Structures are given as C-alpha cells and as structure tokens.
C-alpha cells in the first residue's frame, strides 16, 4: 500500500470486515479505500465506459456493505470483485431491457475518450478486442488475481473453460501489445 507510514500496523481485511459487519462504517470505508481501484478497474474493463463503470462499482460496494456478514475470510479482493462482476451482469441485463424499449438507443455506446491515462490505452485497446467470455476471464484472473477456481465459481464457467479463456486471452494480449510496441 502506497503512502503508509513506516511501522504503522495495518488492520487486516478480515478484521475490517468483522468491524464493518458490526456496523462500524469507518472500517468499511477503509475497505472501500483499499479496494476501490481494483473494483473500479474491473468494472471499467468489463463495461468499457467510465461513468457506467463507476455506477456498477458503487453498486458493488453498497451490495458488499449489505452482505459483509457473509464474508468468511480468504481474499477480500476476490470476494468484492466477484460482487462487482455480478453487479455488472445485472446492469447489462437492465441495459438490454432499456435498449429493447428504446429503438433510438445506441447499443453498447462505449466512450473510449472518457478520462483515461495515456499508458492505459494499449492494454485497454488490446483487451477490447478479446471475445467477451475470454475478456471476462482475463479481467478476473489476470487483472484481479483471482484463481481459476474462484473465477469459475464467480462466472459459472467450467474450470477448464476458464483456464482455456485465460491462456488464449493472455496470448492474444501479448501478441497485440508486442505488435503495438513495434509499430
């Protein structure tokens, strides 16, 4: 963690979650601060739209606050990113419904110009070219550090499918990043 004073004790995720479950908002706020980057990053990579992604990320944290009593230890990052993935699916379903009722709505109107850092562009561009399920598995396993088993549990994909998507996705990302660095 950047900016932490030397020698200062860091409260574990488990202890923070336990305190949050007993109603201590400050403990949950520390978890939000600790994992906001990961959750917002996952949501941006899944939706490719910064404003929509932050709505999904906020919904994920609110759901996590409601469900914090269900956290039983293990990687908090995987736990909260699984919630974010499910919130993304719900938001996408809602969006599809809206699209069905509004013929003038542009489907998947991703805004690639939304506040992005220059160094993000190559990786983001490469990620966007992956087939959706491959991209989901790469985002969960490579970007958030979930195990293949955790990603399989989160997505409902068979374990072998997750492994295959990750291997192919990583190979495709490497190929594209190498091509862009040469160009």
């Amino acid at each position, binding site marked *: 963690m950047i900016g932490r004073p030397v020698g200062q004790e860091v409260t574990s995720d488990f202890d923070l979650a336990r305190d949050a479950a007993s109603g201590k908002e400050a403990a949950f706020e520390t978890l939000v601060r600790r994992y906001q980057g990961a959750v917002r990053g996952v949501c941006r990579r899944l939706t490719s739209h910064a404003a929509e992604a932050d709505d999904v990320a906020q919904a994920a944290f609110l759901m996590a606050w409601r*469900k914090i009593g269900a956290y*039983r230890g293990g990687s908090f990052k995987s736990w909260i990113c699984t919630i974010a993935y499910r919130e993304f699916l719900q938001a996408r379903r809602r969006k599809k419904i809206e699209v069905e009722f509004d013929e003038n709505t542009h489907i998947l109107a991703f805004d690639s110009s939304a506040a992005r850092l220059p*160094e993000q562009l190559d990786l983001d561009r490469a990620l966007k070219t992956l087939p959706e399920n491959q991209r989901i598995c790469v985002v969960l396993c490579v970007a958030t550090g979930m195990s293949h088993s955790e990603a399989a549990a989160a997505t409902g994909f068979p374990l072998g499918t997750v492994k295959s998507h990750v291997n192919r996705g990583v190979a495709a990302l490497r190929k594209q990043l190498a091509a862009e660095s040469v160009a």
Partner: protein
Amino acid sequence: MQTEEGYDDLTALFEAQDEALQNEVFVEQVMKPIRRRSRWRPRSRAGSRS
C-alpha cells in the same frame, strides 16, 4: 495469484492502472448513502471471532 501461469507482468500493468484510479471523491460517493441509510446496515457478523 496465478503466478504459475506466467502473467505477472500483465497483472502488474493492470494493478498500475488500478492504482491510478484511487480517488477520495469515489470513496465519499460510496460512503454517503451508507452513512445516511440505516436500512443498509448489515444484519450479521463476519467470521467467528468475537
């Protein structure tokens, strides 16, 4: 972390992006309704330690 798969370098790139997303405004946006709405208070405790 799936270090055996050999994509630590890509993970590091993603984590650098995530680090750049740190923003106190977002934290405040999340916490505001939590502080305001008591119906979102969790009902049970995490873990078994007391």
